[in-house]
């Protein structure tokens, strides 16, 4: 078991390194110049050269790459070219904001997705299950920006119950800060969670139904166990590894969703930061944001792998790969 964890961790570290390298060369070999927006006919070319030298952009690419790696290992992400502050400081502000959205969305996704999926599996082939399947399918097929526009038009613009964008209202008394923040989070979190919850519900229903054909379920039925107990105690336990994989793999979807959602709702998180940095060619920020995203995604997968050990005692004995994949 320890060997399994160790191997997974090494894999994860290699993956992070490859991601970092790939991102570095992709953004540096592409056309475009982070100083492009400062060029103008009146500017002294010598001054531009000085700035370029200060930023280290004049050195050969391999040297810059080595320097970047060195500082990443030290935990130094460099200085943003446009915001003129350390990238680490920017990330320290934006990551928690994105985690607030994605964390709550992930929680909602698991609770709603698993709950509704199990309910559907329990009442399989009933009219409830059938209509739920269609609803899941539509929600799963809905582009999140379209859902966002629909919800904003109804709840923010028409009914004016909720704010349309932003993270807080100005002039809020300190005592109501928390409630105000919550009100701002309702729409983005809903939009973010709905699609992935529907996907998980579909998946959970499918894999639970697959389990119900197995022989051990017939045995459980023969013992006279109730349907709910069979599903909860037997089928769910055996479907769990697959479900954990799916939940782990939903982390990149949530992060990608956050990019779109943060842009729509004006939420100043990492997704919005990333899009802006990409458009302004802010190399250090793009690199660091991609790095953090990769770490989060890989961590999600690692957690899913570790959770196999937790649900499946057989895995703790063997040192093999997880069965589901």
């Amino acid at each position, binding site marked *: 078991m320890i060997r399994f964890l160790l191997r997974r961790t090494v*894999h994860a570290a290699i*993956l992070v390194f*490859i*991601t970092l390298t790939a*991102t570095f060369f*992709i*953004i540096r070999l*592409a*056309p*475009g110049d982070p100083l492009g927006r400062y060029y103008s006919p009146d500017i002294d070319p010598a001054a531009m050269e000085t700035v370029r030298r200060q930023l280290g952009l004049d050195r050969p690419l391999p040297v810059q790459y080595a320097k970047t790696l060195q500082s990443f290992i030290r935990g130094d992400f460099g200085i943003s070219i446009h915001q003129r502050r350390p990238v680490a400081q920017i990330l320290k502000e934006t990551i928690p904001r994105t985690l607030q959205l994605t964390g709550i969305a992930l929680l909602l996704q698991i609770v709603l997705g698993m709950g509704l999926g199990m309910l559907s599996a329990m009442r399989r082939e009933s009219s409830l299950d059938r209509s739920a399947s*269609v609803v899941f*399918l*539509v929600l*799963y*097929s*809905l*582009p*999140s*920006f*379209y859902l966002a*526009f629909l919800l*904003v*038009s109804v709840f923010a*613009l*028409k009914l004016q119950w909720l704010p349309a964008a932003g993270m807080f209202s100005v002039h809020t008394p300190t005592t109501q800060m928390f409630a105000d923040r919550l009100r701002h989070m309702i729409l983005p979190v809903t939009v973010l969670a709905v699609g992935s919850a529907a996907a998980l519900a579909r998946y959970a229903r499918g894999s639970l139904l*697959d389990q119900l054909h197995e022989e051990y379920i017939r045995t459980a039925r023969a013992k006279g166990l109730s349907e709910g107990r069979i599903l909860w105690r037997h089928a769910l336990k055996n479907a769990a590894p697959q479900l954990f994989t799916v939940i782990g*793999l939903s982390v*990149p979807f949530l*992060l*990608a969703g956050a*990019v*779109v959602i943060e*842009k*729509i709702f004006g939420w100043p998180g990492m997704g919005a930061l*990333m*899009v802006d940095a*990409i*458009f302004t*060619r802010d190399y250090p920020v*793009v690199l660091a944001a*991609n790095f953090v*995203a*990769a770490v989060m*995604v*890989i961590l999600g*997968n690692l957690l899913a792998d570790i959770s196999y050990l937790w649900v499946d005692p057989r895995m703790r004995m063997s040192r093999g790969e997880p069965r589901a*994949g």
Partner: protein
Amino acid sequence: MSESSKRKWLRFVPGAEWGRAGGLFFFLYMAVCLVRLPVLLDLAASPLVENRLGALIIMIGAVLLYVAAVFPALLRREPDRRRLAAWKGRFRTNRLAVVGLWFFLAALVLSLLSPIIAPYDPAAQHDPALNRYQAPSLQHPMGTDKFGRDLFSRVLYGSRVSLTVSVAAVVFASFLGLFFGAFSGYFGGWVDDVAMRVVDGLLAFPRLLLMLTLLAFFAHALWVVVALLAATGWMGIARLVRAEVLSLKKRDFVQAAHASGAGRLRVVLKHLLPNTAGPVVVAATLRVGTIILLESYLSFLGLGVQPPTPSWGSMVFEGRDVLLSAWWVSAFPGLALVLAVVACNLLGDGLRDAMDVKRA
């Protein structure tokens, strides 16, 4: 004797093998082409490459639809024909899946024919000051946008981008996946180990972020979008094919092929790959929906196909400032998007059940 040869000839009439619905779309397509023949000829003779390409695509579309409509007749081997008939029989019992198939075919036909059925030029701005933000009417079934452009025509043309990009990307991704999966599964050993680590690594990467980075830093021409979507989307199919090949290669018919002296390449191409068709078709269909969504996200963020070429994602984006006053600007393209994706997913689900594929 003459009876059977007559039947043989009849089988190549669209609709004879698939049933009425199977031929309907082909005849509908040809009818529209006939009615709008003058427009089609104009396009074909136009000096603009785009227009000539549109006309060419319409003709290729006719051939493809014909092939699809008489597909069962083209299968020579009896077991293949029987398997297809069994799939069809099971598929038909799923009403939702049939609806999905109809919607998908309708979308495909409309998008192929968009140059000859769109009432207006999607980029033409006729007196924007006068025509902007007109509500849906008989003249403009979906209203007009900020520049007075006809939204119905733009939604029609937009389907070309969404559907061509996603179908092309999925086809390329499937080929990549087939290739990687088949060889990884067949050779096993360290080849398999390395290939699967690569797949794991790519799967772990947030795809939209990768696409964003690549598209923002390089040109975003149509073919770049397709290539990137294909390059980042083949891993799931590769895993699927590998799993199938792993279980197939122990089967008797593969051993028999080896024993009768078939080369490795021949075994992979002739015996293993054809038997993975079911799962791959299902997975590919389900992926078309996902890719339509992904493309719309890219367009929405301004990184997909560039204006004035209409794309559903960017059209929804254009309506963001007028959600209440001119709801139709983003409502209709969004609706088209949802319908197309729902149709793909219904179709994919139906195919999965009909072909009895476990996971895709």
